[in-house]
């Protein structure tokens, strides 16, 4: 589930508030968005890839918080790791032209 909104990385653009399909975040008057409805998070990782500054971290466990801290996620270079896997950068789409899934389907 979503666990970290990094105040040091966030530029307060509120894109995550807009794009989260489960409406998990609330914008704040002058600050970073807050995780307002944690229970509704569907662990889809999409907020991470839309965030222009890799300020969000969604942990792998879908049933509740893991308690991972920003320092831990940072040390393991986990911020932005899903976006890098896809080829998305700074919130912009990219990389689908290099998707080798057709090779997997042949092997299947």
């Amino acid at each position, binding site marked *: 589930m979503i666990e970290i909104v990094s105040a040091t990385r966030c530029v307060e653009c509120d894109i995550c508030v807009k794009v989260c399909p489960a409406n998990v975040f609330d914008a704040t008057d002058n600050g970073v968005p807050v995780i307002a409805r944690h229970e509704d998070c*569907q662990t889809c990782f999409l907020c991470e890839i839309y965030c222009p500054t890799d300020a969000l971290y969604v942990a792998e466990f879908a049933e509740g918080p893991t308690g991972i801290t920003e320092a831990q996620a940072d040390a393991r270079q986990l911020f932005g790791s899903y976006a890098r896997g896809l080829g998305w950068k700074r919130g912009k789409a990219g990389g*689908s032209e290099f998707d080798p899934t057709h090779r997997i389907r042949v092997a299947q």
Partner: protein
Amino acid sequence: MPKPQKSVSDRLHLQADVLVLGGGPSAAWAAVAAAESGAKVVLADKGYLGTSGATAPSNTGTWCVPPGDNRHAVVERRWQRTGELADPRWMLRCVDTAYRNLLRLSEWGYPFPSEDDGRLYIANLRGPDYMRFMRRRVLLAGVTVLDHHPALELLSDGDAIVGAAGVVRQIGQDWRVDANAVVLATGGCAFRERILGATGLTGDGYLMAAEAGASLSGMEFTGKYTLAPYGSSLNKGLPFRWASFHREDGSPILGPTGEPLRNGIGDREEEVARALIVGPVYARLDQAEPALQGWLRQGQPNCFVPYDRAGIDPFSELFRITLRAEGTVRGTGGINIVSDDCATGVPGLYVAGDAASREMMTGAVSGGGAVNSSWALASGWWAGKGASTHAQRRTGKAFRSAVQSLGQAGLHPASSASADISAGEVIEAVRSEVTPLDKNFFRTGEGLEKSGERLESVWRDVRDHLQGEGLDRVRTREAASIAAAGRWSVAAALHRTESRGMHRRTDLPGKSPAFAHRLVITGVDAFRIAGAPERLAELAS
């Protein structure tokens, strides 16, 4: 462009020719198709068009069959696997239309990958990219997109569906759209299982359609589960095609031939399910050789997010797994379609994608993995065209101000609202009947009877007492929809006294010729189940 007007109650009030409810691929294609036919289109999604629904977080393979002579043979081969409930005519027209829309995507510039010979490979659509691209196409087509606008109920003028109403969930204001036709593209019902894309997939469209008088079909086919790393949302089976499976004590899980299982997907989910009922199961993706490991990582990056974040190398280390229930998302049930333009039989109401029954396409087996995404591409297109044709015929008729709101359970309880019943409890009660492997993957008459009685009592409480105010109505309505879907599913499963595809009755193994037809459910509170044997006549011809 429709102009917003503030009505007396200060709610958002729009008028359109066609209103599309949903924000996944079928909604996007319906909106584009209707707009291309000249209709004024409004699309209202519970989430955000581009990220919501089952496709956006995934990577979907399509059923891509280029035109040519062997098309009939390909369809025939697939039909053989559908438990005799699919309809080759629908399968053929679906692959045709889906192929045309895949070509359209490539003409629009969607960044498909290339094969070694340089030709574009158009049979696979990477979810986040595809849905972001579709959002742009929908906006370019002139559609008014309303994100975070869940629909709560349909509106009727007594003769036809003339719009829908809901709530703007980030503001708390009500909305209403008057429209000459409505497309339900609200997806399936995942019974609140924590799978990719499922938060919003609560079967709202089924309840709305049934309240309007439409029928449902195939609701018994909710026995599809997919492997995932334990506790994760990653219900993607593909990597488990190359895995071994072990019990807590390290002993391997054996396949039907007595050999250790080396492939855990498709029919082999059965062995894993049996083991999971007894105790924890572990897997290792040790059947994938190095080249394949690289393709899996690069082609299915989200499958590896749980391992990477948990610090596991899934190719060399054992990790705990689970089977995630998928309701009708990878099941096949949904709203019954009565004509080629995806009409529901209720004037003005059309249906597309997972909201519709996919039995004509995939019968009693799951359409996940290829058929469902092609179905979304094709049915969205037909429903959008059908709705805009219907809307054109109605043009000129003034919208009547005295419309009737059709929503009942979760909105307008039959008896007094009660504080003792909460949406969360309703959902948990339904989940405990329709998600456990020993109740729903493997089914028995006795078990289904018991589940049926419990769900009946849950439903009575919902019908009589569940009500929300303001934004809470989204939750109460979701709970009511989940309760209705669970109740229909168990009732249909009890009715089908045989085993077929993902409907596994351990007390009645094997198909019965008497059930080589679909089961159609009509009604909400008092519903009836009838066979649809006309499909057989179509198959024979």
